């Protein structure tokens, strides 16, 4: 499926979507509350069939937090990037996709661990790489740890 057709589909799913295209992927940015439904449609749609989530990343921006989903269809061999924009930096929340792609279970735990993004309805949302009693969300840009972090 070509990028223009994908753009069409995403425009239908979320009218607020901002679409850009770089040298690699088609990148669609949509508000977080619409992300789950859009992703589910992209996974299940007959002509999209994005069955392989190869990367899930949390990104911290000064004004908002993003969850980046790198999607690929193993059948149709097309790829795209979907970014869910969470405006609330204090208590970021987004619906989980762990039931759509099983691999998201670990990746969402990692995003929660580093950015404090609360994935609603996640089966087992705990810290994964850090200790259970770690305080703060270390990958956020405003995280401070005077002992372990060296400023240079």
């Amino acid at each position, binding site marked *: 499926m070509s990028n223009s057709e994908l753009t069409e589909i995403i425009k239908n799913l979320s009218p607020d979507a901002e679409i850009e295209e*770089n*040298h*690699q*992927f088609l*990148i669609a940015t949509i508000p977080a509350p619409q992300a789950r439904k859009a992703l589910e449609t992209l996974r299940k749609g007959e002509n999209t069939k994005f*069955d*392989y*989530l*190869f*990367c899930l*990343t949390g*990104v*911290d921006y000064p004004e908002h937090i993003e969850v*980046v989903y*790198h999607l690929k269809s*193993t059948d149709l*061999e097309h790829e795209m*990037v979907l970014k869910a924009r969470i405006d609330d930096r204090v208590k970021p929340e987004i619906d989980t996709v762990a039931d759509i*792609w*099983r*691999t998201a*279970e*670990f*990746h969402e735990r*990692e995003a929660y661990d*580093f950015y404090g993004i609360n994935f609603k309805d996640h089966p087992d949302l705990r*810290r*994964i*790489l*850090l*200790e259970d009693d770690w305080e703060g969300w*270390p*990958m956020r840009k405003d995280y401070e740890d005077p002992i372990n972090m060296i400023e*240079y």
Partner: protein
Amino acid sequence: METLDHSEEITALESQEYFINMGPQHPSTHGVLRLVLTLDGEIIRKVEPHLGFIHRSIEKMCEKDAYTQIVHLTDRMDYLSCHMNNEAVCLAVEQGLEVEIPDRVKVIRTLISELTRISSHTLWWGVMGMDLGAITTFLYGFRDREMITDIFEETCGARLTMNYNVPGGLMDDIHPNFQNRVKAFLEHFKKKLPEYDKLLSNNVIFQERTKGIGILSKEDAISYGVTGPAGRASGFSCDVRKKHPYSAYDQVDFKEILDETGDCYARYKVRIQEMWESMNIIEQLIDNIPEGDFKAPTKAVIKLPKGEYYQRVETARGEFGVYIISDGKKSPYRLKFRSPGFSNLSALDHMARGSKIADMVAIMSTLDLVIPDIDR
């Protein structure tokens, strides 16, 4: 701890599930991985991996480091496929800089990648045998791996964490002896690889222990993101070298090894055949290293243009991805490593349920986990 389920009918003897901590120090987790097993006698009901014992916050460190420095950190993740990890970062940076990489570099990178893959697989083979109780394989695997590490040592001075790549090319040119030694190794290894089959693959006990154990269907493999030999053994065609060729992989002719069974034996066989395929790739390239520079000119301080870059490579364990978001400064705004082990491990619970403790060891070793790769 969750509460135990007592709803099952209590017969003459009451049975109760219990927990066992496999790790953090355990011979067959190959590193500091802790698995909390819920057992019913010897049968596994649930596996809960606890990770992060050697988390070094590499991604956070990358946000402060220059791109040339980041390359060094990737060695310390999947140390058995260090060259491929380096290559992924370098390719991502080169993608951003839009530099033309000399053909010589591409071919050498491919050659070293495949040698690294063979060395990783030989080590895996040895350890796999050891996990199943055949300790002798361990030393046979290391014997052959030693020849490769010697080649690496001569090429770049290091045996394990090589750091041979730099953004734009290679650290230095290959040693004049390189081609001869690689050819000598191929000749040696072609005789030794059938020995592996004789010692382990064709052993009745080994086949009994691995056939039909830890089955992962194709759908599950895709859903869990299990890539590399483990994914391909389930029929998931995920070889990055074929799907998104990088370096010199578009110049060589090789097969993507696929299997349909998805059990431990299939994963085992895929890896063995991958070693043959890697030798095939090396043979095609070893005499055709083009003349030229070993490095494209780059600036001393690399600044990537604003934007995002995703680069994936096929490491010995699966699809390794580097996702760089750059804001135009000398270090990335965000850098994410999609490590294959992390996703592969997530399927462990699904694969191990209902099998025995001994099978658990077999399943883990066929997933070929490298813990620093998972913990990052």
